[in-house]
């Protein structure tokens, strides 16, 4: 007898995770497919990591509809799931009269989108709060209800709760066929090596969401993969900015920002470049130089030589102009073309998609035994007076593995043994924060690799740096073991 799922979610990014988290609260059998070896491997891990205030999107779009509500939901979820979040607030800054006019427009739009407590300030008042900002800044729009989030932890945390509550997450499963037969969706993965059957399918495939859509419906939108390149700066340079600093947005995006991160670094970026290949996360000298110049327009003394990492993320921009969320075929829901502010909007999008599934006939009954919430031990946050007692109880928390970020073996082992097992250095980094610091894993990666192998039973050569295929070790020295 073949196994039939009620709902299959395609895609392990933040959208898929929010839906899996939502559906895990109901009596439905959910299959969750992700082509990579971990969650949050696409746009959900390489983005600006911001919970946006909601002033930017046009009110008559889904983006406008979800953004403000999303910001509040994200903050609540971060508290509930113990995800790193800092309510920093954000400034959109203006350099001239035309941009002041634009700030006024954003203020008005923000009111329509129900953004609370916004405030327009003159340049001096902005600099009182943000002394490193350029003297050229003449005004700023202050959005207190916004902040910075750990986006991959957010995705993984929702995923862990979903898996805890019975969602069947299958990693390394790329959907290669999607057809409807016998009133069921037939989902082929990995070139037909495996087949799953499902009553409903949700497409949350990120940059590939147009390809999945086109398998079941006429093309209605096209993803325009848009690369953004970033700098991450060493914590040691101190807080150049306290809040997220945006320049005035344009049609191409929200512009280059300078932002604190939840870990106390400074994030600078992104540019916006349409690319051909959907997974081309290369960085280029030209783009980084341009990002640096634009950022220094906001913060002239920004020390870009303190860069500890450059990376690029691919946004799922599209020719549609809004999120593409709808029923596109019988029992098939698209959560597609999720561009910025998609991270902020993920929780309300999931509720909306759940409603669409119900409208398509999915019967949803709340579980009585759903186990929500999540608690993570972060050694750095344990009060000083409790540390000695805590290590006596849990000796592994006494061994620092990541020196730069003071991450202990206890935290790494706990991360490995949560609901979704990490099999790569980067997967542990996304959970425990190892290798995030200035040495970028130089000291700790051999030790983290050893811990992953020990705790999971993998051979060290099977531990990946990141995605499947990103092997680190090629084999033992001194030949094979006797």
């Amino acid at each position, binding site marked *: 007898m073949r196994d039939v799922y009620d709902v299959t979610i395609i895609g392990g990014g933040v959208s898929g995770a929010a839906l899996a988290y939502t559906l895990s609260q109901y009596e439905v059998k959910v299959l969750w497919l992700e082509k990579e070896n971990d969650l949050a491997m696409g746009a959900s891990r390489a983005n600006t990591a911001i919970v946006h205030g909601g002033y930017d999107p046009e009110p008559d779009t889904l983006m406008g509809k979800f953004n403000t509500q999303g910001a509040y939901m994200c903050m609540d979820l971060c508290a509930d799931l113990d995800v790193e979040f800092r309510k920093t607030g954000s400034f959109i800054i203006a350099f001239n009269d035309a941009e002041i006019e634009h700030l006024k427009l954003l203020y008005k739009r923000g009111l329509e989108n129900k953004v609370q407590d916004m405030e327009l300030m003159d340049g001096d008042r902005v600099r009182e709060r943000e002394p490193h900002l350029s003297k050229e800044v003449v005004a700023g729009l202050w959005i207190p209800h916004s902040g910075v989030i750990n986006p991959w932890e957010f995705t993984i945390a929702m995923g862990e709760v979903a898996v805890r509550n019975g969602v069947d997450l299958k990693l390394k499963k790329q959907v290669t066929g999607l057809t409807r037969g016998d009133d069921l969706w037939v989902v082929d993965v990995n070139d037909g090596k495996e087949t799953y059957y499902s009553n409903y399918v949700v497409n949350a495939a990120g940059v590939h969401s147009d390809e999945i859509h086109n398998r079941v419906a006429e093309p209605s939108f096209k993803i325009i993969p848009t690369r953004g390149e970033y700098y*991450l700066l060493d914590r*040691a340079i101190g807080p150049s900015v306290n809040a997220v600093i945006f320049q005035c947005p344009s049609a191409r995006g929200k512009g280059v920002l300078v932002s604190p991160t939840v870990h106390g670094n400074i994030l600078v970026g992104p540019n916006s470049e349409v690319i051909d290949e959907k*997974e*081309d*996360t*290369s*960085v*280029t*000298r030209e783009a*980084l130089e341009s990002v640096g110049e634009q950022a220094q327009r906001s913060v002239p003394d920004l020390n870009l030589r303190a*860069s*500890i*990492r*450059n*990376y690029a993320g691919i946004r799922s921009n599209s020719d549609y102009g809004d999120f593409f969320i709808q029923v596109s075929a019988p029992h098939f829901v698209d959560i597609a073309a999720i561009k910025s502010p998609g991270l902020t909007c993920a929780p309300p999008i999931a509720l909306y998609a759940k409603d669409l599934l119900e409208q398509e006939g999915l019967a949803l009954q709340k579980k009585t035994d759903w186990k929500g919430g999540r608690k993570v031990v972060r050694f750095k946050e344990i009060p*000083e007076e409790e*540390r*000695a007692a*805590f*290590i*006596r109880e849990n*000796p*592994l928390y*006494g*061994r*620092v593995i990541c*020196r*730069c970020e*003071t991450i202990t073996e206890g935290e790494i082992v706990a991360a490995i043994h949560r609901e979704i097992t990490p099999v790569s250095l980067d997967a542990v980094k996304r959970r425990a924060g190892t290798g995030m610091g*200035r*040495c*970028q*894993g*130089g*000291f700790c*990666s*051999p030790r983290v690799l*050893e811990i992953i192998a020990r705790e999971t039973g993998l051979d*060290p*050569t099977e531990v*990946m*740096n*990141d*995605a*499947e*295929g*990103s*092997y*680190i*070790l*090629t*084999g*033992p*020295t*001194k030949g094979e073991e006797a």
Partner: protein
Amino acid sequence: MGCETYDFDQMYDLIVLGGGPAGLAAALAAHDQGLDKILIVERDKELGGILNQCIHNGFGLHYFKEELTGPEYAERFIDDLKGTGIDVLLDTMVLDLEVTDRCRFLHVMGVERGYQALRAKSVVLAMGCRERTRGAIQIPGSRPAGVFTAGTAQRYVNIEGWMVGKRVIILGSGDIGLIMARRMVLEGAEVLACVEIMPYSGGLNRNIVQCLNDYDIPLLLSHTITNIEGHERVEGVTVQQVDEHLTPIPGTETHYDCDTVLLSVGLIPENEITREADIAIDPRTSGPIVNQHMETSAPGVFACGNVLHVHDLVDFVTEESQAAGIAAANYVQGKRSAEVYRTLELKTDKTVGYTVPQKIELSDDDNLIRVFFRVRQISDKPAYVVVSDGTKEIARFKKPFMFPGEMQHIRLPKVLLDKADGNTLTVFVEEV
């Protein structure tokens, strides 16, 4: 937080941060001076520091007058610890250091003894350095696996027993990169080239000969990697020649198929604890500013080894660290006179990268003061190192040749220093 409010588990004469060559030599020297209660805190599971993974030879020629491997060099000092009563905490991390006029205290943490607050009359900083990474030098391209700092690769290969690649390009010609080129070849990999952006190598000549030339590995000077390709694992790199401004020259691109890039692009003294303790740092060395007793701007806190400035030879680390250990002992034992001496500040111009010490205290105890420095440019013919007080020359030394990759030193007699007007000396190179 005042010292008095703490219930300290321990009170030491000296706590040494780091059990590598610098920390070991400092602790032993302080013990020889009669200090009783000494503690070495080491974050690794054994003493020896980076020497444990430097299994090649070439250590000790200067200090022991014989050629040793890294582990052998370390073991001599570890052996010397026996019977001294010097305490060692392994697998233990120093989380912070606080310095007040009256005391120095630290929080340390480890599996065995947990979280502790410790107090010391003096502290020696000997935390060593870390490697510059890809992020710090911003190599364009994708971010696949297979890009390692040379030291990380060295740990995998020499300590853990794992190979990290089969076809290798080395970026940077620092000594660790050169040493790893040979190691990788000996372990069966192919090393295609060592690529150096500067017109000269950052490593020792002998290493170029016996690590590259011996194995026919080309050293491409004035070249750099301008792109890294590969999605999951490195698949290739583009190497380009650079002009005198270090800008890549279009049309000089060469592609190499490889699965591994090792970075040997510089070392950075690891001074996070130092910075957080508000100890003055010299931006030229990225290490604390010290006088000839290796004393930092914080009273009773001394620094030595690679945390102070990056050395090419461990022998000099040993000597410098012994000086720090002796100075710490003198400090604790109150052997230093309370007199405030004139202090000279050493400056550099564009010909010299830095000096250590950066300050010289003209006390009566020192007749000859050794000053280490690095030149910024190659002098392949004899040149003078000149010390001037701005109006007149204080000393002049002839050197047969000088390279930025090789640390130099001069010895300044106090009788000459006493003649300096003002409080600033400049050290510079003058062509013959």
